[in-house]
């Protein structure tokens, strides 16, 4: 299957000559959910910022559909949507206006927007809250707004940073069902998470980061093989790796 996102020899950080992530190589292909896992401070968010084009690589690059952000900023950014770890909303916009704004930013036709938005709102049980403002939402509801905005666009690639925190079980279920449905219709997903049991069930491949480096990657079977832990769960492999037993 064709790769959507290709990260090649990516090194980057916040200060010159002090990289936080080192020589990352990975890809997300069509119809694939890739789990990005690692301890706090492992470099997951920095990696995601590079993929988003919010940070510039020191060396290497990140390509979406064969193009880097520098080649074609507009096209690069229109290929994905992003769900941040912390929901960031505009205090002065209602739920509905956030959805409208997203649709406009990605250049969706109004008709497409209207046909997509209703079922989404119902699925996440937010259809009676479209006139609400962010200060009336709980943390989980804010997270739902971010998710709705991202799903609405139906891009080729989803970049998701820790989506489950604060979400109710039904919300988590709906989100995962959507992810699977979009995956089956060809989209790719890069998802950073700490909820390993869920990741194990839904992700096709895993990238395990430690201290800014990718130290283990592959399908669950491949991870087991490489770590030498037969029949281990993702949890067990991850703990094994995080305690520094793989070099």
């Amino acid at each position, binding site marked *: 299957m064709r790769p959507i996102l290709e990260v090649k020899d990516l090194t980057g950080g*916040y*200060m010159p000559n002090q990289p936080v992530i080192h020589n990352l190589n990975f890809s997300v292909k069509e119809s694939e959910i890739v789990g990005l896992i690692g301890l706090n401070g492992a470099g997951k968010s920095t990696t995601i910022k590079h993929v988003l084009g919010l940070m*510039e690589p020191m060396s290497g690059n990140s390509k979406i559909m064969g193009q880097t952000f520098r080649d074609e*900023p507009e096209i690069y*950014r229109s290929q994905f949507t992003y769900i*941040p770890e912390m929901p960031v909303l505009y205090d002065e916009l209602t739920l509905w206006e956030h959805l409208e704004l997203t649709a406009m*930013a990605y250049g969706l036709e109004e008709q497409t927007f209207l046909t997509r938005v209703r079922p989404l709102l119902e699925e996440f049980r937010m259809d009676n809250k479209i006139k609400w403002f962010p200060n009336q939402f709980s943390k989980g509801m804010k997270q739902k707004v*971010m998710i709705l905005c991202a799903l609405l666009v139906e891009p080729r690639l989803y970049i998701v940073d820790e989506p489950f925190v604060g979400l109710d079980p039904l919300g988590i279920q709906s989100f995962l069902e959507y992810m699977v449905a979009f995956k089956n219709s060809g989209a790719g997903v890069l998802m950073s998470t700490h909820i390993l049991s869920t990741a194990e069930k839904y992700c096709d491949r895993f990238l395990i980061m430690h201290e800014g480096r990718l130290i283990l990657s592959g399908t669950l079977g491949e991870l087991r093989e490489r770590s030498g832990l037969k029949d281990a769960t993702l949890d067990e492999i991850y703990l094994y790796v995080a305690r520094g037993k793989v070099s």
Partner: protein
Amino acid sequence: MIDVKKLWRKRRNAHLTQTLKYFSLMANSGLIVSLILLIVVGSIYYAKLLKALPESFPAVLILTLLFSFWLTKSPIRTLLKEGDLVFLLPVESGMKQYFSQSLSSAIASGSFMTLFLFTLTWPIVQVFIIDGWKMYVVFAFFLITAKIFNLYVSWEERRLPYKSHQLNYRIMRFIVNFVYVYLLFNEAYIFLIAMFAIMYVLKNFVFGVFRKVHGYQWEMLLAEEQNLKMKGYRLVNYFTDVPALKQTVHKRPWLNSLGSFSFKKKNVMTALFMKTFIRSGDYLGLYIRLILIGFLFLYLIPAGWWQIAVVILFFQMLTLQLFTLYTQYRWNVSFIIYPIESDGKQAAFVKWLRGLLLLQGLLYGVFYGLLSGDWVIALLMPVAAFGYSLFRLPSMTKKHITLSS
């Protein structure tokens, strides 16, 4: 597509409305009267100072330094919001129009402020450099031109992905500005024309290149915007309570010893207040400034027992300003649910503030004693601080804290 121009206009209008609202609140507060008083007194002393300055006063050098700093430091309000980092990312290239609007508005206000600053220094220019309204116009023109140049290229500078690289270019701009202003105040117009050529090259072939190599640094732009917003809020906060004010935290490790207390429950609140005081926002700066301004007053006003009233006025000012520190924790849930009585929290606040007042009084006393040699009145200053903190402070605290919560 999103109409970014409209978005900018909407935000700018909201920003203007808010500024006006805060401005009227400031105008209504009593402190504006003291500000006017300060301006009147200030201008009298300004005139006196001008007369007292010696012939050899290095006016050119000082003004050159002042304007070089002013020109180099070119803040730009982008009015970005946190949500933009998610919602506006897909329209990156469309943001050009948005940002060019914010740059134009920075140029407008920057030019105005440059003119204002130059007008403030005009009396010095008249005395030490050159007089005549024509020169006022010429100097103002050149300074505003330089300001526009600086804002323009510093916007391009903001595309550099690392702070340290931005700083290098800022230092370069400072040097250019210094030479430019120095030539201006020496009326070396031919050299100034040469400077224009250098600036043209810099603009097109140095700073102009960044645009082709780098995208916008969204996170840094957002951080700058929030920083500038908080600066504005902090200014307003001197006059009226600003709920949106988030204090920035400075580590200041050299003051850590002041914030350490023995591990006992009774110390918990005092420790919290002290740690907040030394690390959070502007409290420490405010304390030091108030003490220094107090010194100035003690120096300017003729010696006598009325100086006690002056220092009490400064105790009062400090107390009023530092109540914000308590109200900063008003909505902090752990602060509310700690198993400590509300009276206990207030008492700890009073106790903590008493320490600061005593130190303030002591410093005033020493300063006054050394100045006038009248050690009786000097001794009365820390005593007054103690009396103030014993009789006036508790009731004021009670009143202020019940009012604001």
